[in-house]
């Protein structure tokens, strides 16, 4: 599937850019004057395109007292600039949705992204808006106040969902030093107290062309797109300072940690989370495979042991691939009348079996085939491509997206057993129980 990486630009490109590299059809350029990175994937198909700006800033970059700033800023970015503003009848949402665009943004630990999927003829509009708000967001104090209420409401809803709360509590217990410990939405008191000036400082620190990647995917003309990107984003200078980086490393965990969430609800749940390596490391690919072997489909170990035997109503295996070490997790909703301990023991025993006896070639092949099909489906339409690419950018290496198939091919049966022994260890885990109280 991978094409050879060319060393030169595929065609003549505008002089504002330098061509960096290409991988599996995706071309990488750099806007020379300000360091903006551009990823471009022209596709055949419907006359639509996705434009996405990924800022290399997430909740990892928040300091104590300012948790939730990234997410709050993401909301404020929709409140407008001088040119695009509700009072002029040109709010960002209105303007983009008027042409049928799907518009949204999301914040996660390592990144913040803003995206539009729209008819190709309107792509210049999306690029204009994104470039405008890269440096021109107003961050009006009144808007901060009204959005604070909206975000507190959003946080309430998350807190009311016991499973969402369980995940937050487990991450908070698993990380004592690294900023992955706090939820992306932020602690309530921080959301309540953050000021417009505080957000402005955050914005002025991180929202610069040389701390962002613009991705354009879809039925587009390469040269036109590059000229549009240069025209809109080229008017910004590079950041006048070095972009601050997170240097805190989570100290090694020495012993199991346990948390309990007691809250109104119907069905209990168990979450077991283990420290995992950074996303770019090959062992992370192997953990993706292990998550599938454990809990994807009826052939999986935990389905057969837990769901099929009536211990759980659903089980999941998740490898959160992040820029710094994250958490590999298994999660189960308890079946009615089954206790937490029984499910936790059953899940633990299945993991031990893999550590002791390994997995079969059939299991590895099945997991790999599932992931292969998933990759093919993740290319169905520009939005899916952009969203996958976004996570690879966030992890710190966009070619993770294009090289993933090859990386998977290198995973062996022995690797799976080895990573199960290396990472999925009792003394490095954090176990969370959700115990319904009604």
């Amino acid at each position, binding site marked *: 599937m991978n094409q050879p990486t060319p060393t030169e630009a595929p065609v003549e490109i505008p002089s504002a850019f330098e061509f960096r590299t290409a991988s599996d059809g995706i071309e990488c350029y750099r806007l020379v004057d300000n360091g903006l990175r551009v990823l471009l994937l022209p596709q055949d198909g419907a*006359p639509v395109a996705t434009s996405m700006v990924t800022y290399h800033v997430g909740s990892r970059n928040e300091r104590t007292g300012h948790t939730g700033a990234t997410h709050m800023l993401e909301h404020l970015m929709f409140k407008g600039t001088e040119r695009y503003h509700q009072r002029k009848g040109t709010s960002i949402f209105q303007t983009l949705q008027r042409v049928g665009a799907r518009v949204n943004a999301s914040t996660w630990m390592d990144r913040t992204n803003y995206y539009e999927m729209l008819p190709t003829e309107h792509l210049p509009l999306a690029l204009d808006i994104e470039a405008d708000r890269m440096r021109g967001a107003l961050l009006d104090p009144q808007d901060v106040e009204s959005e604070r209420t909206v975000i507190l409401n959003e946080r309430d*809803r998350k807190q009311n969902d016991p499973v969402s709360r369980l995940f937050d509590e487990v991450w908070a217990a698993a990380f004592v030093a690294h900023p992955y410990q706090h939820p992306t939405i932020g602690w309530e008191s921080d959301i309540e107290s953050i000021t417009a000036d505080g957000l402005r400082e955050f914005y002025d620190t991180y929202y610069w062309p040389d701390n962002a990647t613009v991705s354009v995917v879809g039925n587009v003309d390469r040269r036109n797109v590059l000229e549009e990107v240069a025209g809109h984003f080229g008017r910004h200078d590079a950041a006048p300072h070095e972009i601050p980086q997170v240097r805190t490393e989570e100290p090694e965990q020495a012993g199991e940690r346990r948390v309990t969430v007691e809250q109104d609800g119907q069905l209990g749940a168990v979450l077991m989370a283990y420290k995992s390596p950074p996303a770019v490391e090959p062992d992370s690919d192997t953990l993706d495979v292990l998550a599938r072997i454990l809990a994807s489909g009826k052939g999986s170990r935990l389905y057969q042991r837990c769901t099929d035997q009536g211990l759980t109503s659903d089980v999941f295996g998740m490898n959160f691939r992040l820029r710094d070490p994250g958490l590999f997790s298994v999660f189960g909703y308890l079946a*009615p009348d089954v206790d937490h301990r029984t499910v936790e023991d059953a899940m633990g025993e299945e993991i031990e079996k893999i550590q002791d006896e390994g997995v079969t070639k059939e299991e590895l092949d099945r997991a790999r085939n599932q992931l292969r*099909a998933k990759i093919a489906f993740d290319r169905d339409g520009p939005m899916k491509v952009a969203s996958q690419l976004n996570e690879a950018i966030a992890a710190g290496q966009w070619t993770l997206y294009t090289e993933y198939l090859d990386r998977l091919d290198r995973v062996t049966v022995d690797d799976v057993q080895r990573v199960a022994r290396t990472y999925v260890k009792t003394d490095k885990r954090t176990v969370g129980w959700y115990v319904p109280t009604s």
Partner: protein
Amino acid sequence: MDTPSADSDSSAGRPRLAPRIRDRKAGPGRLLTLPTSVDDIVSLRGSFLAYPDLASGDDVLQNLSVSMLDRGTEFRDRFELAQVLEECGAKLDLSSDGLYVECSGRALTEDLPRVMDVLAEMLRHPSFDEREFEKARAQAAAEVRRRMEKTGAQAAAALSRRLFAPAHPNYSDAPEDVLRRIQRVTVDDVREYHERHFGATGWTLAVVGDLDHDRVETVVAEAFGDWDGHEPEPTHETDATAGEDPDKSNVDVRLGQSLSLRRDDPDYPALYVGNYILGGNFSARLMRTVRDEQGLTYHIGSRLAGVTARYDGYWQVNVTLSPEVLDEGIDVTRTVIREFVEEGATDEELADKKTTITGSYTVGLATTSRLAQSILTNAERGFDVEYLDRFPREIEALSLNEVNDAVRRHLRPEALHEALAGVEPDPVEA
């Protein structure tokens, strides 16, 4: 595009779908296929009409029947079935939606024959193993309990009970009643329901992606060959109940009224646009006023719901409100609605939403799964495939008078029922 061709819509440069769709009979049903530029994959959507007797509680039987389909057939046990799909990373989901039993799936193109084979086997020859049935029943009950925690779903279901009779496909039972009925069902009931109601009646399949028309046709004909239709005829209520006096209560709020209009009604496009102007997206009136200007809610919107060519649907306004602004929020919402119906939309709003609707229609057809769903839904409505290309033109041709007339004819603010769930202090997303 400078020169309009037979394959493009000259008004907007949209490539036309209909000339590329092949529509024919294959085996016992209708097959629609559309090749696209995607590599290596296909998406499929299909349905047949089961005609449950909704007044007698057949919806529970239908749901349980469907949940038994992937739990083993006369030829393969549940693990063997799952293995076929899991080995090739394919997905196949079966579900029940009112009158229909539906399937959706995706696979690498090379794996379509074995996926189709499994699909046909599950639909036609489930084994209804007793032990599996007990598990399916326990999981169905757990699912109902989980839904009881979602206040948005509860409010919507409560509204549906105000607008429709139990025999209507848009009626949702109270979860407590569903739980009770689930407990009473036996495996024999489910087996009998399958025998009577599962068959090729109205069986339609749409397949989209990296495909060859003829090859898909051969695969489908071989897999479904001699599948017959079933006996039951429609017994469902088609009209909405004339509602009693609207009453009022509290937090995750749904306002709604029934609509005596079907999807093939000539008023439908105009009303669709009218509702869109009111509450169809983030820049619609409700969102601009109640959320952006007044900051009373995180989300508010309105939609035409449950509208099909076969029975009446309803108009629903969703709003999530914190307990402290509940009354104010509902009042403002009602005022915006009343003013909209009385005064109508403006030329500018109409022009805006025409661009929006046709643009998002184009955007919405950018994946194989969305295309397959659109083709199937269009077929279920009894529309010809050309309607897929005609729809945006129909929207573009609407006048302001047509839209405002349709709004006044069909939307009655004074007849809005209110339903709510999630008593304070737990507002939950709509």
